[in-house]
């Protein structure tokens, strides 16, 4: 398979996932998009294995490794900070023993907000990865000008 065909397939899968996402929001079925996402990514990986004109040499692998490692180094701190906040929601106990029965202390992080924060985290991870990838690609000579 040619490289351009692969990119076309990835584009089609992304479009299909977007439509499924919209539909699952409409019918309020998060499981649908979750399963579709797994299937979509599996299809991308399968298609990538069929590509013949992409050479992944050791420098590419090194750039990917370094970018992934740095992304994880930053991301896990932010993710853990958020997760600790979420765990506090689970472990929450009333602050005062005389608190009236039935009243709840205010939510530290309401469930709806958790979705937004997770979306933000996802975007952060993508931006971090792209940023680090550009940095390491530049460091290992990707944007060097050839005088040939």
């Amino acid at each position, binding site marked *: 398979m040619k490289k351009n065909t692969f990119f076309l397939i990835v584009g089609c899968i992304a479009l299909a996932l977007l439509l499924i996402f919209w539909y699952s929001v409409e019918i309020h079925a998060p499981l649908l998009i979750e399963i579709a996402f797994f299937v979509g990514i599996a299809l991308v990986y399968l298609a990538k294995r069929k590509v013949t004109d992409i050479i992944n040499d*050791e*420098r*590419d692998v090194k750039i990917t490794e370094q970018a992934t490692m740095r992304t994880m180094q930053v991301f896990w701190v932010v993710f853990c900070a958020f997760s600790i906040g979420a765990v506090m929601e689970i472990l929450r106990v009333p602050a005062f023993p005389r608190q009236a029965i039935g009243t709840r202390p205010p939510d530290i992080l309401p469930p709806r907000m958790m979705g937004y924060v997770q979306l933000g985290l996802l975007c952060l991870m993508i931006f971090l990865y792209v940023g680090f990838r550009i940095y390491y690609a530049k460091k290992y*000579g990707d944007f060097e000008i*050839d005088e040939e």
Partner: protein
Amino acid sequence: MKNKIKIFRAMHNLTQENLAQAIGVNRQTILAIEKEKYIPSLDLAFKISRYFGVNIEEVFIYDEKTPTLMPA
């Protein structure tokens, strides 16, 4: 790590693309090595020097100042 890939390429009348195809890497990798932006693995260094039919020391010059562990 300094290298003489460019000289050997000129001697063999090879383009970066030719050399890259012959040893199975991207042209950008050859360019990065020539510009000393990337230190190749031992495996790739051997492949390059074998391709030119010379010893590894003739193509790559080890510089004491070059860090062996590349800081990120």
